């Protein structure tokens, strides 16, 4: 009886004094639906919180507004965040003041950075002829893909992509980007290299109907993750261990599969310089064209 009472007191004490680590993720950063992202996050957090002797409590929140997430981060309300790369570039200076470590989610195995392909049906033609119908498909919320294509069209045709293509569509599923091009001769799509290769593996017939007409540099990331300076090294290492080490794959596997994340990769500010330069050149070019 006595021992039971002590155990309950210990549990209460442990719960009260466990370190709270708030996570804030931008909902549109993932390649799945918001519902799926939310569920994946909850599963992952629950699994970690249910571990004995972790000493931390994960509190995860999915943000709909990137500005709110940014503000919460710099105010130290959330320690682990994931922001769109353009938001990162926009508030880079301020963000880095409160950041001790950058990371990114990889959607392909061991491929931290993304290369985009502009693909088309072999029957279709890419030109400025207004009479020909050209539909362009993007993955929903993948702003860097649109950025790259716009930059490409500005360089090639001196116009933004919206003037080259008759209509643009945002698709919820990445695989659909390739299928749309495969089945429609007037369709084009910007698809990450890793996704394209995976789909071609699934159906080699795609290669017969689809051709890659443009390739981007390997500089894009799906999102930029930041770890707040306020997180003690002990907790930071513990969390990174749980999310990156193969030993703990069983804890994250279900959540990662659900949200289509392969790995979490630690990156440095310098790793994003190429993208930053490209972005700067693009904004300049765009301003000139206007």
């Amino acid at each position, binding site marked *: 009886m006595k021992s039971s009472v002590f155990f309950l007191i210990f549990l209460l004490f442990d719960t009260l004094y466990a370190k709270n680590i708030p996570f804030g993720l931008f909902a549109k950063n993932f390649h799945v639906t918001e519902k799926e992202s939310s569920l994946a996050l909850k599963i992952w957090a629950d699994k970690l919180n249910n571990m004995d002797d972790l000493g931390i409590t994960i509190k995860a929140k999915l943000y709909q507004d990137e500005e709110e997430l940014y503000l919460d981060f710099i105010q130290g309300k959330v320690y682990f965040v994931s922001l769109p790369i353009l938001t990162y570039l926009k508030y880079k200076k301020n963000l880095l003041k409160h950041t001790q470590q950058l990371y990114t989610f990889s959607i392909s195995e061991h491929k931290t950075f993304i290369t985009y392909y502009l693909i088309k049906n072999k029957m279709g033609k890419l030109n400025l002829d207004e009479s020909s119908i050209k539909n362009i498909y993007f993955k929903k919320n993948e702003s860097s893909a649109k950025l790259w294509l716009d930059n490409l069209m500005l360089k090639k045709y001196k116009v933004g992509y919206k003037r080259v293509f008759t209509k643009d569509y945002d698709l919820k*599923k990445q*695989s*659909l980007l390739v*299928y*749309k091009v*495969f*089945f*429609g001769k007037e369709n084009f799509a910007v698809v990450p290299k890793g996704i394209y290769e995976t789909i071609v*593996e*699934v*159906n080699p*017939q795609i290669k017969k109907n689809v051709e890659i007409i443009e390739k981007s540099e390997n500089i894009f990331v799906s999102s930029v993750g930041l770890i707040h300076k306020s997180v003690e090294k002990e907790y930071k290492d513990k969390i990174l261990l749980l999310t990156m080490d193969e030993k703990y794959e069983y804890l994250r596997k279900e959540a990662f599969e659900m949200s289509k994340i392969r790995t979490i990769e630690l990156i440095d500010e310098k790793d994003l310089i190429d993208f930053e330069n490209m972005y700067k050149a693009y904004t300049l070019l765009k301003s000139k064209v206007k």
Partner: protein
Amino acid sequence: MESLEKNKLFWKVFFLLFVGIMIVTSIFAGYLLLLQKKSIIELLHSEGKSISQSISFVTSDALIIDDSSYLVEFNSEYIKNNDKLQNIIVAKLDKQYFNIEKKSWSYLNKIDASLLQMQKNTERYKIMYSPILKKRVFHYTYPIYFSGVHWGWLHLSFDIKDYDNKINELYLLFVYLFSTLIVAAFFISFYIANLFASPIIKLNQTATSIANGNLSVRSLIDRNDEIGELSNTFNIMVKNLEESQLKLRLSHEDLELRVQKRTQEVNKVNINLELKTKELAELNKNLDSKVKEEISKRHKHERMLIQQSRLAAMGEMIGNIAHQWRQPLNALGLIIQNIHFSYNNGVLTKDFVDDSMHKGVQLTNMMSKTIDDFRNFFQPNKQKEKFSLMATIDTTIDLIDAGFKHNNIKVKKDIGDEVSVLGFPNEFAQAMLNIFSNAKDALIENEINEGLINIKVYKEDIFGCIKISDNAGGIPSDIIEKVFDPYFTTKHQYAGTGIGLYMSKIIIEQNMQGFLSASNEEKGAVFLIKIPLFKDESLART
């Protein structure tokens, strides 16, 4: 046990039970196996149907707007989340086929004929070899209809590893069950066969001993069932048999003594019998002479009868002659008296004498003719001849008419067509005479003032019929059956012989193959005579 092994009955019962149990249980197990297979297939079918309905419902828009991308993407995701599902083929009516597997998909222009055969208006399913997956699968084909419009088919192939495992488990279970069953059936059959055959074998052994003459043995089966009862009954039977045999032996000894005694008695009887036989032989020898003697007596009797009949007829004839003669005799007497009277008065002339003599001669001639008539009448015919019934009746009436008139008896005749029959006319006339005489006697005896005899002659079928009736009051009912018997008469001994009607019946029925019957009417007796009609001359000659 050793006796069981040698016993055919035991092995027959054992074999029957063993084979019966095995057959029944095998059929039952086989049926269960079949049911299980069917049940698993039905389960897969149900799953296939459910999945097909879900897929077709979700992809309905994609099919309608021809969004192949969505079809592929959705089914690719779907198949990944379903462990059993091995591939999905979306077959569109325009012969576009999307084959989606777990890790790949492909776009096809045609599919294997075995799959095409499954594309019907209703769902189809079976376990088959998939030409795409190159293995056995449960294949389910579902026709896709939206709003009554047919859009294509869904082919679903399910992994049958579970199915095979379950069936293999069932087979294994069946093998275990069968092995256990063989052992169990063996012991059960052995036990039951022993239970039934053992007492019968014991009884058989006991019966064999008894059959060999040992009546002291008994069945030692002690059971509370019918076999126990049989054993007890058998023992009682054997006991009774033993007692009966003893009694039989004693009886046999007694019988031998009795047989000896009987033999002596029989010997005596035999001697007597021999004597009787001799006597009988003697009697047989005399029998012939006795029969001849009796026949002779009978002939004598008949001759006497005939004689009596003749005499009666003679009497009748004389009577009738007397009646016939009465008138001419009176007339003759008067003639003689007139001659005498004329002579006394001196008026006798030659003419008167000639006239009287002429009248006398006429009268004597008439009397002579009367005698001739009667003589002819009683002259028997030699052979059958055609004759007229009415003519013969008229002749007969003429013979006795004087008697009728004398007794104030009238004769009324009712005659239709001429009726000719075949027979002996004189004998017939004699029979008529007997009947008329009897009528006349009855009318006289009963003192009928206005006696009447009706005679009706007519044809009926093949017969000529004569119905003779009178008004003499009829024949008493107590004697009507006897009137045709010989020597039966109601008249005084001096008046009748009792053979008239007997002879008439003989004449009509035996000699002329007719019928004579008597009955009563309101006023008197009726005699009906039927004689075969004459047909042709040839018949007449026979």
